[in-house]
């Protein structure tokens, strides 16, 4: 079952981010225009250093743009956004339950209601048995599941995900991708997902934004036509998937080469 698509709408216009340091300035993002519709799963791919994480951090309120505007319409959502970080970012001194409930505690959700919601979120990611564990007692995959639960439990208008599965081994990544798609299909929230894997972008998203090497601009936006619900294994084995992967790689290739040349210079 695919839920009705609902979530925050995002409108980004002429966004620019410049880092000024003693030696000079670095343009991380330039001329970013992008609109994300409610309930869309948008993936952003690009070579390392293209500013894709910076864009996400600005959306998350952890960084500010140099110029340009961002409009997020999250009316009706208790929380505008929740981010899932690459290294889970679970607090080592809190149990899984306390970590997952963190965003509820900070917002003063009554304890009884919070406990209920945390329980539901733990169930959603299959971690009920581990609720009293500390993060160091969990595997990398379980930690990322907890981080996903922590984000979903706050019922945000949009989820911001910064290469959440990049540090996992291949098998865990496949499992978690499938779970994420399942959870997203159930909830239908807006997701902005940064990755460096074309394959991941195609498996998960409705559209893929390809960014240029530094300064980060939007090079192309590609529609991903695969219907939901998706079976990631069969999907990744299909001819259409392979063809699209190659298409996007062609778009991305120059940028990756350019980023490499830049690094070696």
């Amino acid at each position: 079952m695919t839920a009705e698509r609902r979530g925050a709408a995002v409108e980004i216009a002429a966004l620019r981010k410049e880092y000024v340091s003693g030696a000079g300035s670095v343009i991380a993002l330039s001329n970013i225009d992008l609109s994300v519709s409610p309930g869309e799963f948008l993936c952003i791919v690009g070579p390392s250093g293209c500013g894709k994480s910076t864009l996400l951090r600005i959306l998350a309120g952890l960084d500010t743009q140099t110029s340009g505007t961002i409009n997020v319409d999250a009316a009706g959502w208790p929380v505008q956004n929740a981010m899932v970080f690459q290294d889970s970012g679970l607090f080592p001194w809190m149990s899984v339950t306390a970590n997952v409930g963190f965003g509820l505690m900070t917002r003063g959700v009554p304890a009884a209601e919070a406990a209920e919601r945390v329980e539901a979120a733990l169930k959603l990611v299959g971690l009920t048995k581990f609720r009293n564990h500390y993060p160091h007692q969990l595997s990398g995959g379980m930690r990322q599941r907890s981080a996903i639960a922590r984000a979903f439990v706050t019922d945000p208008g949009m989820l911001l995900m910064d290469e959440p599965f990049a540090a996992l081994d291949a098998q865990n990544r496949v499992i978690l991708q499938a779970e994420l798609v399942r959870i997203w299909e159930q909830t239908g929230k807006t997701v902005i997902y940064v990755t460096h894997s074309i394959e991941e972008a195609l498996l998960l998203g409705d559209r893929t934004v390809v960014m240029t090497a530094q300064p980060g601009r939007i090079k192309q936006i590609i529609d991903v036509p695969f219907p939901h619900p998706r079976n990631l294994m069969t999907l990744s084995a299909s001819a259409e998937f392979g063809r699209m992967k190659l298409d996007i790689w062609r778009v991305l290739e120059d940028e990756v080469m350019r980023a490499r040349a830049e690094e070696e210079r």
Partner: protein
Amino acid sequence: MNSMSATARERALYLISPIALLLIWQVLLMIGIGDRRFIPTPTDIAARFGTMVTSGELALHTGATLWRVFAGFLAGSIPAVAVGLLMAMFKPVRIFVDPLIAAIFPIPKIALMPLLLLAFGFGDASKIALVAIAVFFPVVVNTYTGASNIEKIYWDVARNYGASQTVLFTRIVFFGALPTIFAGLRIALAVSFIVLVASEFVASKVGIGYMIWNSWELLQVDIMFVGIVTIGVLGLITSVLFQEVERKVIPWKAE
């Protein structure tokens, strides 16, 4: 089960070196190397220890010393943790407090004893104040170091998930710094015994330090050793208790 007996065995191994030292000490004196009037044997000291325990004299001095350590340790470490956390969170606090720490930390705290006697008199208060001051510095520095080295991602998560300043302070900065705070508290515990015993030498009529100093003036060398050993034992016991507390308070610290 197996790991339990392994740790028990390891703990037992820790006794080898002290026991060997005592044996050598005893044997050397018994075969006539060294003067027993000035250096009593471990058994002489043990006998004196026994009489002092039964007379209640040792308990009196130990009680006074422990109370001063305990009160001074709390009075010094609680504000130190608070100030250290505030320094890490607010730059103005850091700018204000940093030079004071840099200037006062290196002063041997025992040098403040006459000043404290003027301020607090000859009673417990002056000794407790001295311990508190001596404890404050290692704890404040460690707390600040621990709190300012909390990984950036935890600040990011806290901000993204709507943490208020209060939540940041009580749930993130404090706990994130806790392992380092405990390292500071451990140093502080040793420091508090050091300065307290020194202050009791000159400025007290009760306490282990007084007992040691008084026995030197009366040339009761065995009492002196009882005092020294007692301090060592107290240090050991408090340090073991401290480790237990640490294990309870920081359960996430990877073993």
